[in-house]
């Protein structure tokens, strides 16, 4: 009786608050998707998990904090000023993260690649880069100091209502920016010369080198694309949640999971996986046993395991798992 009541109560909460859960799920999912793209691209071209990618995201968040406070101070932006600051925040945070991602590639991975190091060496190097960036941020900005960017629009601002549910500006911005940046990345990978290079390297790097693809340049540009999306996500995440040196680890795990769920190496799979995990995490909150929110993570990973049992390469993954 109690068990049935628990589930019925959960469904009742979903029914009454559907749009609220949907909006927050899309917001989180958009951020996971933007970060997941970086994981999947790097996996596509290098065949390795860039464990420092969460910290690349974190650097973008901190960059946005400094940029927005430098421009706005303690004031709150509105109207066109908000639009300008959102664009500037995305540009700066994306650029800083792209720079950091490039640095990670040049320092942590390239020397190993030139020496044909085993994959295990890449893994250790990635973890080292992750710890380095996290520790550096902790020392510079304070361990556990959750800092917020200036209010580029009023925090908690409602943009419109669906029924009686307020939909917030940050939720709309996360979704719109996520969709635009994902489409841009997808077009680059599918329709440009650079994209052809990325896909060629992902399929067979030695043959693509023989065919004239500049491997080093292609890999660097892959890190730049992934870093840019992660940086923009860092900015948007910080607007809602603030940013702290450990933020990258938390979000990185979710984003990596999203990339695997969607099919690691598949760009569209990463986006789909991110959105699904965001939505699933949100809609599972009413079903958390004894109100313990950690159950949402358990549910999420149970679903991940079930999906992988049925489709080991993920929802949109292909047999090679490296399609970029």
């Amino acid at each position: 009786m109690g068990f049935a009541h628990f589930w019925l109560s959960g469904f009742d909460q979903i029914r009454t608050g559907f749009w609220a859960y949907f909006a927050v799920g899309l917001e989180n999912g958009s951020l996971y998707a933007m970060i997941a793209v970086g994981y999947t691209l790097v996996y596509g071209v290098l065949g390795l998990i860039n464990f420092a990618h969460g910290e690349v995201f974190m650097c973008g968040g901190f960059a946005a904090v400094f940029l927005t406070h430098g421009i706005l101070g303690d004031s709150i932006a509105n109207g066109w000023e908000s639009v300008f600051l959102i664009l500037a925040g995305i540009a700066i945070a994306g650029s800083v993260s792209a720079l950091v991602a490039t640095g990670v590639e040049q320092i942590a991975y390239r020397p190993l690649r030139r020496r044909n190091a085993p994959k295990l060496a890449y893994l250790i190097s990635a973890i080292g880069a992750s710890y380095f960036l996290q520790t550096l941020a902790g020392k510079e900005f304070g361990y556990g100091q959750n800092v917020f960017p200036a209010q580029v629009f009023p925090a908690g601002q409602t943009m419109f209502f669906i029924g009686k549910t307020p939909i917030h500006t940050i939720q709309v911005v996360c979704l719109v920016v996520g969709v635009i940046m994902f489409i841009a990345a997808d077009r680059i990978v599918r329709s440009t010369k650079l994209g052809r290079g990325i896909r060629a390297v992902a399929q067979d790097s030695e043959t693509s080198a023989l065919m004239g693809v500049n491997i080093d340049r292609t890999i660097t540009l892959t890190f730049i694309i992934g870093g840019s999306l992660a940086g923009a996500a860092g900015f948007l995440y910080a607007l809602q949640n603030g940013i702290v040196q450990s933020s990258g680890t938390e979000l990185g795990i979710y984003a990596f999971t999203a990339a695997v769920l969607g099919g690691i190496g598949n760009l569209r799979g990463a986006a789909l996986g991110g959105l699904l995990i965001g939505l699933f995490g949100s809609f599972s909150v009413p079903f958390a046993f004894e109100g313990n929110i950690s159950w949402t993570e358990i549910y999420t990973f149970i679903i991940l395991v079930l999906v992988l049992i049925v489709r080991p390469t993920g929802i949109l993954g292909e047999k090679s798992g490296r399609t970029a």
Partner: protein
Amino acid sequence: MKLRWNKTVALASIGALAMTAIPLVAGSAPSGASSKPTYVIGVQGPFTGADSDYGDYDYAGVEFAVSQANASGKYPFTLTTEKFDDQGSSTVAPGAAQKAVGTKTLVAIVGPAFSGASQVSYQYYHAANIAEVSPSATAVALASGTNSSFLRTVADDSVQGSADATYLVKTKGVKNLTVIGDESFYGAGLAKVVATQAKALGAKVTTKSIANINEGGGGNAGAYSTLATSLAQSDPSAIFYGGYAPEFGLLLGDLASDGYTTSKHVIMSGDGSNDPALLTSTSPATAANGSFLSESATGKVSYFTGKLATEFTKLTGVKAAVAIYAAQSYDGANAIIKALVADKATSSIATLRSETVASLHNVSFTGVTGPIAFQSDGNLKVDKGSVQISEVKKGKIKLLTSVG
């Protein structure tokens, strides 16, 4: 040429060492100086990170007590202080405790500041017979056994949690309360006391828990958004959060975004959130306005008054009016000093440490916070008293009333 250069450098180095050695020797043994032994009273707490205020205030209280003791000249020892930074984290604390245990002239610790850090540090101090006198670790389960080496100069969470529940149900008339614990040793413990007491007083209580982010809980900030959405949907008349300021600030911002505000609801937290860091951890900062914060009266900040407050600020550079738990640290350090005086053996630090544990259980004096004497389980003998409720008003934490 290279050899000559090396000789020159070597000669210059010897000369420089000789020059520096002279004042060093003179400084260590001034004429007429007594041969008093020097002991270290350590302070374990967060000196970096979001909660570093707590560590700084604790240290200031100990520094003040030690300075007064040394200046009095009446003790057969000289005291110094040393910081051991645990960042308030259960994962960092064991390292800090081991470093303290390895400090050769350390006789006792004031701290740790936080309950979770205290829980994991205890085994190291207990094994080395080092007394810990915490000014602010309030989790009920910390004090237990007999002749405990963990003692505290603050009332435990059973006092604060019960008073918080009474304030919510009796004073604010809350009928439907959601209590959230942050899964930390401290936060979950306080939340449990509040939930139990509020239920006993007749309120409908729903319990929830969410992993903290900054105290080693590994939580995810995005989960706070979804929790806030869920809370706004269920719309309880009040929320109590057992945890620390950074996460409480995050929750306040998320709740305000979802329309769950302090203007229509009661939102409260305990002493873990009663920290100026709450105001910088909340976005928008106005979302914190109207929230209530409690702390045990034994944790109030107004114990240093008049001349004592002036001297405290002059020595430490810390304003007495904001230095939460500095007075408890001051009393803790003075308890250790009185125990050291009562100790008989001076033959070895190891003996002195274990004697200090035993002597602390026999100290009895009136500190600035009230009577200081310990039960065999380490709790204060007078482990009761009122609890103070503060409210955030216009971006400042203002004392509102005393309850309990």
